[in-house]
């Protein structure tokens, strides 16, 4: 039996004005377990807290009920008081007789009667309280960043700067991501490579950072602080540590007609290749699908010319196991496929391109060395039409695009249009838009400059169709302001394709038990207050894997994710919330109902041996809750048919005791 002390607070006149506090403390004296009951003006004051501490000592109290304001207000305070008095802090219950009683009821008899009932419920509950101790788990002081674009790079650099080791896993042969493919960046027009490549070098040179390029995450086990990850290093047939990146092999490789994915297939590369000059790691990779030596054993030229002897045709995929305390997802985005948008003739004409292709076309390191030339005949275009919102903001039932706004297109299209007019003032540039969305620092000014200083023709309306005719592209569009249908003979049409999360995100989310929305963007733990954390503890989100983002936003989110990771890794031990679920294995059926409703993947199963009454043993599958992962929602307790699953702090018998006390 508990020895319960009841402390009724007046809260000045806040409670005492509508509740007869004397009557409440008097009435609660007779409740089971109560050995002491009193009231005081301000229970939360130092004097009030001292009163509690003294009473604990004097009456050997094992449980405390404070009838006062909301537990959301002072539960923590009184728990500390209890701890200071040598009690377990979880032996405190609060009866909310201010917000939910004295403040909402007018007359004293009603208020007093309800306060007594609320007090009784709290006493009934505290009688069944058990001391709780938060669980502790160690933290592996190493972080994993999945994805080596600007988001992953920035996150890794920030974590490494704080002194923690970080591994980056990138599926491409080099880090850099989409930003490495861009020409200039809005709204300042600095060149993407000039600001990105130094960061890539920083990554390569940072002692705390390891890069696993041309690699994928193949398995994730464990939980916050203790992830166990298997990384698959795909065979690149070049010894990374020996290759100097001299490029002799690339030059000699006879297989030179492989579409170059870095330039989106607008030119060719060789079978052994380095994606671009500033690649990190600057190491060659052999594409096994096009290398003659790997396909049929004939060639081997690259091995002959490699002075360092780095080529190894027998290299196999390698699996690496590593432990991490935190995982950052930075898997990024891709433009959607234009296959379903026949009206723009993307697949019919080479001169209809996406904006990312346009970036490569204007990039000095791109297939045209930065000269704006039409992909079909290399002529310089005189009329360019930009189409916005291609596949963005589509109705779900239209089934070919995305429902959301891709966010970055308005700004990069303004940038493209402006750059064209700047370099080639005799080119006519049309931008067809539905809305121009420019929230961001210096964004609208940038767009206005495109119109006012550079003379880009912005037309409110959508392009209906693009038809190749001769060497022209017939563009039919509406001008909603002037109320006419426009027919433009264009030389180049640029589509602002919607962006979508990378395809690797979905299987990764499954491995992480991290939740995703219907568009395959990762869900954040709270849309406003915890935007860089996944609901799964220890998993953080960086960049466009969480939603469409531009570079400044990505970088700031990357930094925020890094600071969350640093905060986690700085701890030696993780102290959990002790109000977590636990399973009584004697009653557990192993039916998996609880596991299915757990939003955190905190429940696993193990085969356990039980001794039966007849001295035989029996092996049964039983649920096990990982207290470091459980957040204490209690969904599992209701899903469990046998009642084996219960929740600390809100146990079934405690809640039923409260119900009984109220319904007496």
């Amino acid at each position, binding site marked *: 039996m508990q020895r319960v002390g009841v402390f009724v607070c007046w809260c000045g006149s806040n409670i005492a004005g509508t509740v007869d506090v004397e009557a409440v403390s008097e009435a609660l004296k007779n409740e089971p377990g109560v050995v002491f009951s009193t009231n005081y003006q301000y229970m939360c004051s130092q004097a009030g807290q001292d009163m509690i501490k003294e009473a604990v000592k004097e009456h050997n109290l094992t449980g405390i009920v404070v009838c006062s304001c909301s537990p959301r207000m002072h539960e923590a305070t009184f728990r500390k008081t209890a701890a200071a008095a040598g009690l377990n802090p979880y032996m405190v219950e609060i009866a909310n007789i201010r917000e939910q009683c004295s403040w909402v009821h007018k007359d004293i008899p009603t208020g007093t009667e309800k306060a007594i009932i609320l007090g009784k419920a709290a006493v009934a509950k505290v009688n069944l309280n058990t001391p709780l101790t938060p669980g502790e788990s160690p933290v592996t002081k190493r972080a994993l960043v999945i994805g080596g674009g600007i988001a992953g790079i920035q996150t890794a650099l920030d974590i490494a700067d704080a002194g923690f080791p970080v591994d980056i896993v990138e599926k491409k042969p080099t880090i850099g991501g989409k930003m490495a493919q861009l020409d200039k960046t809005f709204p300042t027009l600095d060149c993407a490579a000039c600001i990105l490549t130094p960061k890539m070098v920083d990554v390569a040179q940072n002692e705390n950072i390891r890069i696993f390029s041309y690699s994928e995450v193949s398995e994730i086990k464990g939980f916050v602080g203790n992830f166990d990850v298997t990384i698959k290093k795909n065979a690149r047939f070049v010894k990374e540590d020996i290759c100097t990146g001299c490029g002799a092999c690339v030059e000699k490789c006879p297989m030179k007609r492989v579409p170059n994915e870095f330039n989106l297939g607008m030119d060719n590369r060789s079978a052994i290749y380095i994606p671009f000059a500033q690649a990190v790691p600057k190491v060659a990779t052999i594409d096994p699908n096009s290398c003659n030596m790997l396909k049929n054993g004939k060639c081997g030229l690259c091995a002959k010319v490699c002075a360092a002897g780095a080529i190894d045709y027998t290299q196999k995929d390698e699996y690496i196991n590593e432990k991490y305390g935190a995982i950052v997802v930075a898997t990024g985005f891709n433009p959607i496929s234009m296959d379903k948008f026949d009206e723009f003739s993307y697949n019919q004409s080479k001169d209809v391109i996406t904006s990312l292709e346009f970036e490569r076309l204007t990039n000095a390191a791109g297939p045209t060395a930065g000269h704006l030339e039409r992909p079909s005949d290399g002529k310089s275009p005189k009329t360019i039409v930009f189409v916005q919102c291609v596949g963005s903001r589509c109705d779900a039932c239209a089934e070919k695009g995305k429902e959301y706004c891709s966010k970055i297109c308005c700004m990069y299209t303004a940038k493209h249009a402006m750059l064209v007019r700047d370099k080639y003032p005799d080119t006519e540039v049309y931008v067809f838009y539905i809305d121009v969305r420019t929230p961001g620092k210096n964004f609208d000014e940038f767009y206005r400059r495109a119109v006012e200083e550079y003379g880009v023709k912005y037309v409110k309306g959508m392009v209906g169709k693009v038809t190749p005719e001769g060497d022209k592209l017939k563009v039919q569009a509406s001008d909603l302001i002037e109320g006419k249908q426009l027919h433009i003979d264009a030389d180049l049409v640029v589509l602002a394709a919607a962006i979508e999360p990378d395809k690797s995100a979905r299987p990764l989310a499954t491995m992480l038990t991290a939740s995703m929305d219907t568009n395959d963007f990762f869900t954040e733990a709270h849309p406003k207050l915890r935007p860089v954390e996944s609901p799964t503890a220890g998993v953080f989100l960086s960049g466009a894997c969480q939603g469409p983002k531009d570079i400044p936003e990505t970088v700031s989110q990357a930094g925020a994710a890094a600071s969350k990771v640093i905060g986690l890794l700085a701890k030696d031990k993780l102290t959990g919330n002790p109000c977590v679920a636990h399973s009584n294995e004697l009653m557990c*059926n*192993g039916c*998996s109902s609880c596991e299915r409703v757990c939003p955190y993947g905190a429940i696993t199963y193990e085969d356990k041996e039980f001794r039966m009454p007849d001295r035989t043993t029996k092996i049964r599958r039983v649920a096990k809750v990982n207290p470091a992962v459980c957040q204490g929602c209690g969904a599992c307790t209701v*899903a469990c*048919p*046998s009642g084996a699953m219960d929740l600390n702090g809100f146990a079934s018998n405690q809640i039923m005791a409260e119900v009984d006390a109220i319904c007496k």
Partner: protein
Amino acid sequence: MQKITQNQLIEKAASLLSDGTVNAVLGWSRGEFGYDVTPKMFKTEEDLKENFVWNDFCGVNFSKYLVSKTDRFDGKILVFLKPCDTYSFNQLLTEHRFEREKVYAVGIPCEGMVDVIKLKAVTGEGISEIKEDGENLLVTTIYEDAPVKVAFKDVLLERCINCKSKKHVAYDELMGDEGEVIESKRFDEVAKIEAMTPDERFAFWQNELSRCIRCNACRDACPACTCEKCVFDNPQSGVENKAPANSFEEKMFHIIRAYHVAGRCTDCGECSRVCPQNIPLHLLNRKFIKDINEFYGEYQAGAEVGSRAPLVDYTTEDLEPGEVFDRRDIDA
């Protein structure tokens, strides 16, 4: 009037025993009377020949027995499963309640089983012998000289009249012909009660449930009730067994029981079959099944192994409880 014969089953069981495929057979054996067929583990051919029966009274759903039988037995067990039993079989596998490798399941066709209460209502007590005669049963009682002729169709169990499937959803081997899932009218009776006024519904259930003697037969026979420790047997649960007292207690017991199996109940009808007080308990389970089908889309528990039960699942667009009633009011 079963199409497959007792001898065929004995032969099958004996051959599987002798070739070592299985080490025991879970089957039906004759009880004290012709109609109280009892489950039994057979381990020898002699035992099979002597005691194994297969007739119109073999209603027992063996799936549940596998939970305890496989636990305490080292070898492999042969089990005969009627189509409706196979759903429970799958559901228990979904819940990891027994090991599939320990069981050799033989699917057998079923033409429906006889409701002993219905039979006795025609013939009276004191049944001493039951013989098959075409589509009829010839029932001899100790009180009458001549046997009474009862049409098989007239004394079928409710669950067999509204049979939902003649198709086996799980087996290692199938005897006889495979059937189809049937468009049954099993929800009609639920709909009838739904159409009553609240007062009528209350009176209906008050009448039915007040007969409950809390014998727990429904729970003990239910293949979804395989908890290691049932909440009604657990003094800590707050709902432990109490003596019946013609009040809310019985309703609470039956609501909680139906709720605990909701989404997992395959509608096998064992609860109503075994109820000594003839309470239509299956209606409570069917109500949940009907609601789940209407609110969240058709779902048949046990149709496949590993499916996610509707109550441990959700969509963001689910109906609100209030909308459930609004919709019903509009339909009415």
